């Protein structure tokens, strides 16, 4: 039975996509529609990836404040991407085909995330606060290391890859988009089959194990999936720190349930709606370019502080 609130979100989603495609359409209609269509597809893929990754991560960490972005997953992806450029050299990197690069970056990202965060999860299983702090420091470390390596790369080689490395809402790469959509589709199907299991895992490691769930194995799998979702969104538009937080807070507030069969679609839809409406408003109403991430950062962070001060997040 589709939930009423989910139907409402789906309706809103359809309306915002329609608005984005059709508002102010004039001139070379088909050309513009194609451009907008690609952008819209990109926003949908990114929104779904961020929404799902955040909810999954919060289920794993047993905590509503943590998001992959706050824990430095985005920064890790950029670092891994930079390392790949560093070790291959800029010319070799730029010469590789797009989908292959995307696949390679994703694989490297998943391995690194499992190594680092798997160890962190084992280490600080009983100490959420320690985990948060270490994750945040991870983020800062990854960012500094990325900056460090970028300076080590030959400036002329760096110029070649700069465009492919730093994406934005403005220029979504078409081949990457296709590769990302395929990966997103496969991951979503996998997650869909885990839905009831996720509800049990949300109880925490102890209770889930008592109920016969091989928690550690599933945690490992989920961590891989989360890393891949983050790779998808970061490869397409770069890091957006607080969107996940905003989205999961809204999804939980709206759905008021623990059931992932409702939470995950809601989070994905909300993220897409925010991105599409936001980007639409930016492009058409305010005639601004590529600062949507900044505004989401501002609003998402503010919402987080308000929730915290009101004691809604513990």
């Amino acid at each position, binding site marked *: 039975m589709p939930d009423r609130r989910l139907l409402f979100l789906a309706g809103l989603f359809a309306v915002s996509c329609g608005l984005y495609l059709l508002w102010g359409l004039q001139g070379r209609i088909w050309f513009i529609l194609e451009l907008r269509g690609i952008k819209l597809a990109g926003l949908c893929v990114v929104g779904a990836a961020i929404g799902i990754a955040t909810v999954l991560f919060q289920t794993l960490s047993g905590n509503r*404040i943590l998001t992959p972005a706050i824990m430095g997953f985005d920064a890790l992806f950029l670092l891994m991407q930079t390392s790949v450029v560093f070790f291959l050299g800029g010319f070799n990197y730029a010469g590789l085909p797009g989908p292959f690069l995307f696949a390679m970056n994703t694989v490297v990202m998943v391995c690194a995330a499992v190594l680092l965060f798997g160890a962190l999860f084992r*280490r600080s299983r009983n100490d959420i*606060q*320690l985990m*948060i*702090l*270490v994750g*945040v*420091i*991870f983020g*800062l*470390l990854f*960012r*500094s*290391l990325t*900056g*460090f390596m970028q*300076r*080590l790369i030959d*400036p002329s080689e760096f110029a070649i890859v700069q465009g492919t490395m730093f994406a934005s809402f403005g220029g979504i790469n078409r081949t990457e988009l296709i590769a990302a959509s395929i990966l997103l589709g496969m991951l979503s199907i996998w997650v869909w089959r885990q839905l009831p299991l996720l509800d049990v895992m949300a109880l925490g490691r102890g209770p889930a194990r008592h109920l016969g769930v091989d928690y550690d194995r599933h945690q490992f799998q989920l961590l891989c999936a989360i890393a891949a979702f983050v790779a998808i969104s970061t490869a397409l538009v770069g890091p957006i*720190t*607080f969107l996940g937080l905003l989205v999961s807070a809204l999804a939980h507030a709206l759905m008021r349930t623990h059931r992932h069969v409702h939470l995950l679609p809601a989070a994905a839809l909300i993220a897409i709606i925010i991105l599409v409406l936001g980007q639409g408003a930016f492009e058409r109403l305010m005639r*601004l370019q590529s*600062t949507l991430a*900044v*505004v989401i*950062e*501002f609003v998402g*962070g*503010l919402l*987080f*502080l308000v929730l*915290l*001060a009101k*004691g809604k997040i*513990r």
Partner: protein
Amino acid sequence: MAVRKHPYITTLCVLLILSGVSIFIGVGSLSWDNPNAMQVLMISRLPRTAAVLLTGASIAVVGVIMQLLVRNRFVEPSTTGTTEAAMLGLLAVAILAPGWPIIAKMVVASLASLLGILGFFFLTRRLPPQQPLLIPLVGLIYGGILGAAATFVAFQADMIQFLGIWMTGEFSGILAGRYELLWLAGGLAVIAYFTADQFTVAGLGRSASLSLGLPYGQVLALGIVTVAVVSALVVVTVGMLPFIGLVVPNIVSRLMGDNLRESLPVVAGMGAGLVLLSDIIGRVARYPYEIPAGTVFGVIGACIFLWLLLGRKSYA
């Protein structure tokens, strides 16, 4: 460890060696047969080394003060929005009154970072006291919000490159005549040393301070103003240098405890030394290009901090 037995002498020796290295590294050679050697020394090398030392020392000292005032080991101005607030102030002056003298800009930046700290204090008061690690997290998010606001404003006013300069602390642009404001930061650090006892007591908390007869409000105000002014000064002259105020006080506190009267000189020395080391590494690693000292220290500092956090079972 030698630091534990003779903290002052060890610190001083390390600083002298590093300063020597720093003075002799650079594109222009400093040998007797170079006729411009004296000029290079006076205009570029000495000012640069002095700027690094002053910055590192004052940032580390300010970090300690902030930690005592918030009563949390894991905060410092650049992770609690103070630096971002200073940037917002600078942006405002640069847009509204670009012609103002540097001193006036400084005052505005200091006022803005003061507001930033006050905002952070207001937030921390509303947090549940049983979760000490929530405070640094809130600080980071608060800083992120202010940073996003600054980015937005800078983007609209087409001043992103200024923001980039303020965000990455580096010393390559330091020449005689461009860094002297930092002496003011150094002076404030010295004043902090003379009021060290009061900060130590204030770190015990409001009720403990009042029962010991300490004017808690005044000490708090003095501390906040010091933190704000030093943060603003450093942002204006060299840019943001994260982690130093966090890492150094934590290391020193593990080595010598929390009595500021004893430990503050070592904190200042170690801060200066680590920034100097980062600056030297940044200059040597990709010679003749430079890697900003802030980036180098971001890597070193994060590693040290992770070691501090994970190396001990229950720390906070």
